[in-house]
């Protein structure tokens, strides 16, 4: 099969992908926002598969995420290497078992890092309406809900992200997985498992260092 005919098939396939009118996108975003507005805490385990041009094989990370509104995020990786990151308001503390050192970063002094972290928090917490400034949002499926985010020109994300696809679980309680396609052709899929909503969060989650769990 020639390259040309392969491209044609891919295009036809893409044309067949359902795309809903803007009104429906808005109503889905409002529905999700309303659903997420009662959510104060989220705890979930995750598996992250990274296909990066820099590495020959996929990198598979396993860990957990805890979110407490407003602006508290804990990202913990248990394998292949222990790495903890806690964001509270405008500062970040991180630790990894390799260096065994706690590093504090001010987000105000690291605007690029701040953009990345804030975007990540937006994906996880479901505040998609606020992302309309930076992204064009398409509704790819209504059941289960699948949203596609394409960075707008001039948004910070447009420098490196091609598109992001967020797939909700069938019960629409929380996200099933997030797929991030980058301009560099790198690709990341983050799958959430064992998600708990509005459950009390162990204080230890907000700690970083070798003794933190």
């Amino acid at each position: 099969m020639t390259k040309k005919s392969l491209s044609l098939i891919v295009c036809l396939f893409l044309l067949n992908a359902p795309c809903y009118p803007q009104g429906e996108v808005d109503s889905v975003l409002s529905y999700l926002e309303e659903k997420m507005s009662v959510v104060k805490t989220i705890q979930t385990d995750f598996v992250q598969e990274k296909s990066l041009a820099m590495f020959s094989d996929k990198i598979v990370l396993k860990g957990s995420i805890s979110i407490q509104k407003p602006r508290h995020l804990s990202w913990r990786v248990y394998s292949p290497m222990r790495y903890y990151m806690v964001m509270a308001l405008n500062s970040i503390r991180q630790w990894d078992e390799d260096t065994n050192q706690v590093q504090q970063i001010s987000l105000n002094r690291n605007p690029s890092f701040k953009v990345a972290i804030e975007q990540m928090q937006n994906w996880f917490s479901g505040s998609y309406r606020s992302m309309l400034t930076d992204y064009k949002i398409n509704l790819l499926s209504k059941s289960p809900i699948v949203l596609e985010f394409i960075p707008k020109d001039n948004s910070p994300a447009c420098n490196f992200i091609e598109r992001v696809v967020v797939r909700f679980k069938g019960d629409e309680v929380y996200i099933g997985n997030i797929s991030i396609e980058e301009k560099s052709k790198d690709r990341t899929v983050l799958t959430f498992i064992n998600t708990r909503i509005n459950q009390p969060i162990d204080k230890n989650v907000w700690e970083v260092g070798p003794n933190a769990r």
Partner: protein
Amino acid sequence: MRVDYFGRIYDFLQKRKLLVVCLIIAVILASVIGLRLVQYNNDIGLMLPQDKKVQRSMQFLREANFSDKLVISLRLEDPGRSSEDLISTTDQFSRSLKSPLIKQVIANVSGNNLISEVIFFLEYTPELLNQESLLKIDKQLNPQGIKERLRFIYRQSLAPGSSFMMPFLRADPLGASNLVLRNIEKLSTSLGYDVIVRNGFLLSRDERNTMVIIKTSVPITEGFGSRKLISYLTGKFESLPKFIKPSIIAGHLHTVSNEDIIKRDILVTSTVAGISFLLLFLLFFRDARAAIIFFMPFISVLISINIAYLFFRNLSYFVIGMGTVIAGIAIDYGIYVYVAVRRAGNGINTIRQVIRPVISGAFTTISVFVAFFFSSVEGYHQLAFFSNLSIVLCLSFSLLILPHFLKRKDIVQKNVLPRAPRLNFNNLSFKVSDSARIFLWLIFISLSLLLSVGVRFSNDITQFDGTSKGILLAEEDFHRAWGGKSIPAVFIVSGKTLEEAYQLNEEVYLEAVGAIGEDNFSSLSSFWPSKKKRLENLLRWEEFWSKEKEAKFKRMLTNYGKPYNFSQDAFGPFFKNLHIAGTLPDEPDNLSIFSNLKERFVIKKADGYQIVSFFPDNDAYLKKLSEVSNNYSGTFIVSRKSFSNLVSRAYGREMVWLFFLAAGATLAFTIILLKSFRLATLALIPVVTAIAIIMSVFSVFKLSLNAPAIIACMVVVGIVSDYGMFVVYYCKYKFKTGTYTAVAFAAVTTLIGAGSLLFARHPLLFSIGITLSTGVFSGYIASILVIPPLYRIWIKERLLCAN
């Protein structure tokens, strides 16, 4: 044989009164029409000394890149609205700005290619890294160093949000360009504003404000253009939704506000003074013709503005603001003549009796203003010309024209003498002996001089700024939202060519960093050296990255990267660009990240280039960097603090010289005109008293003595020396021309003129008002309370003894 020119002119005019009236009306009409064509200037430079350093700083501030910019801050007022609403409104608003006065509107800083631009810029790294940086790289090129670096890269890939790091890590596995990246970030934020970029728009940290930057063709000091521009923008604000509160932050707004305040001050002071003058004349003199005295100074001022404009083409608002004061001074001569004619008729003999003291008084006042011609401040030249012309015109009207319209017959028929306040303290019911009066005066003067010790001089340049409170509050709000309140000082290097300026900037940078530290000196040199230096760096880089070293590095990356599964092409971008630098354009002007920084730091001038660097404006750094500047010709520093000091020093030199010149001229004229040292000493008693009281009032009320207040002191010297002169003349000749009444009226009218300045909002006019009111009042009191007893004790008794 002496020719009586005055008598001839007086008679000539008496016979042609109608012609004179017609001529005066014609001149007034022409002046009123001319007034509409006069252009005023609010440029602070007109009021600054021609000191080389002061003028150089002013010129820099006028020509600097930031002087053609306005900032518009749009604030989201409704808590229910989101930053998306704010951004969309900002977008619509900025697109709607279309005017010939606006060169460019920057609302959206294109972040589209930011990362790719930075990566492209990093291709210049070989030209930017010096020997020290290469040594650091060399230390990493061993198994241990490479292992550590690869482990670091691997760790980075585990962090959330690592996507934006990947392109940099692939292009620069050794982190060699970290310094370059840090410097770009440092320079980008060196203006000190706390800004976040959302969708390309500039937002404040709380995401409740957006910023729109406007580049204009209107110079900051141009009142007319500034008004048009501000008016255009405020018109555009009307189309904004209710939940948005706009504000403009710009020097242009200060120009317009200063103009408005001075115009309002001129209107208010003229109205207050005008009404007070009219009431005073009509109530006390009860003669409609007294209104002529009132109109004479205003006509003189009106004509003088036109003539002064023809000479200078560029009249300072400050000078025009002094109009009511000049009117208050110039009216005195009309009063003396009026009172004399009312008392003794309008015959030439009456005029001859007052002509000497009136001309003497005018000469001493003129001599004070003449001293201003020796100043280097252009505004003072205008003040001297304008004031002296007004005084000469008013003097001529008073002596040559006024008497013809005040007929003796009228006065005799009505048998009305001026019901002016008879402030002759010799007629008080309680008698105080002459010695006691002089003793009390000496004690009073001594006390005043003692109190004057605490007087302080203010050199703050902002006192010249009378901008309204509303604008200052808006600026406060702006700084609360955006930060950046402390304005940095600027270190400027000049060169005939850009390369010459770059090289000098480089030399200065090294010394400046040594003096105040790298973090405190934001210089273009920290990330973009001269071409000469870049070529040196590039040669060193090529020599460093030999074929062998490159192959060795590649091998180490492959071997030590295996445990982490790094791909074969993991660091391909680095090797691809390793030797590309020499083929790149000389300067990456096509990259907005570079051109924006260059525009901020490099100023293209007609005769070459200036490169600016920024540092915190504090005394310690100013001192250290002034020493650096002294070592390099073609460099200088502009800072708000040092500018104030420069102006203060230049003013200090001017003021001392001018004050002594004016005081000396007054003293010399007084001695020459009175032909007696003793009489001259008596005539100067009001001067000494006025100066002592002004100083003590400034000290007691903790007011700062500024340059305009010192000028006002000099004017006081001219005014109160007149009072002294008149009272001394009266003591000597006892002419029945109503001297005390005339002096009282002269003082009251001058106090009205000066006192009306107390209603002024502009700080300078207010300061002048305080000085003049205090000085004239105390000088008047001294002239009628102290001169007569001193004359009786010191001169009359001596004459009696001599007889």
